[in-house]
């Protein structure tokens, strides 16, 4: 999937993957796509909860080489 920006949260524990994803989204425009990579298993549920509450759309979530990959479309 195409994306406009990437944020690598590998090695970070809760709440940093979410809090820093939000920071990464701050300077993006509406409709742009952010790719987030995380190694925190908790981030799978957390990213869905983040998307639901902020209106940023979780386009896709997958697992690659034991890492969790998310595509978020900025609201």
């Amino acid at each position: 999937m195409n994306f406009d920006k990437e944020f690598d949260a590998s090695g970070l524990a809760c709440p940093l993957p979410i809090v820093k994803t939000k920071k990464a989204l701050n300077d993006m425009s509406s409709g742009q796509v952010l790719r987030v990579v995380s190694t925190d298993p908790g981030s799978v549920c957390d990213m869905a909860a983040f998307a639901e509450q902020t209106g940023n759309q979780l386009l896709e979530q997958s697992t690659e080489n034991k890492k969790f990959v998310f595509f978020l479309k900025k609201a």
Partner: protein
Amino acid sequence: MATKKMAIIATKGALDMAYPPLILASTAAALGWEVQIFFTFYGLQLLRKSLKGIRISPLANPAMPMPTMPVLLKMMPSMEAVATKMMKAKMKKKGVASLEELRDLCVEADVKFIACQMTVDLFDFKKSDFIDGIEYGGAATFLKFAGETDVCLFI
């Protein structure tokens, strides 16, 4: 969608108890919530310019995952420093944010910090002991905001 609000009373100054208010506040702010933390009693330690004094004690803390040791050993003067050092090293290894980083994230995200004036006076803290940008108030100040919140926690 109306902005959600959360109010937290932070009353503890030990390392393990310092985390929950800052984790929840920084996350809620990332979700777009309006957040206030009211720091009182030992929670005021979290507002000090340096957070280096925040420690964890193995004494009277039977659930702490550390090598089994008799209580008499846990009472040794250096044990608190050892336990704190071990805990901080473990946290760093596991990618857990430092208290300083979480507090900075809260400040950056406009979480409002309020120091309890009564306990500031009780412990003879000076405003210069604390970080800039905090407010001072009492129970009525806290309740004014807390009464309008969706989540209100005492930690």
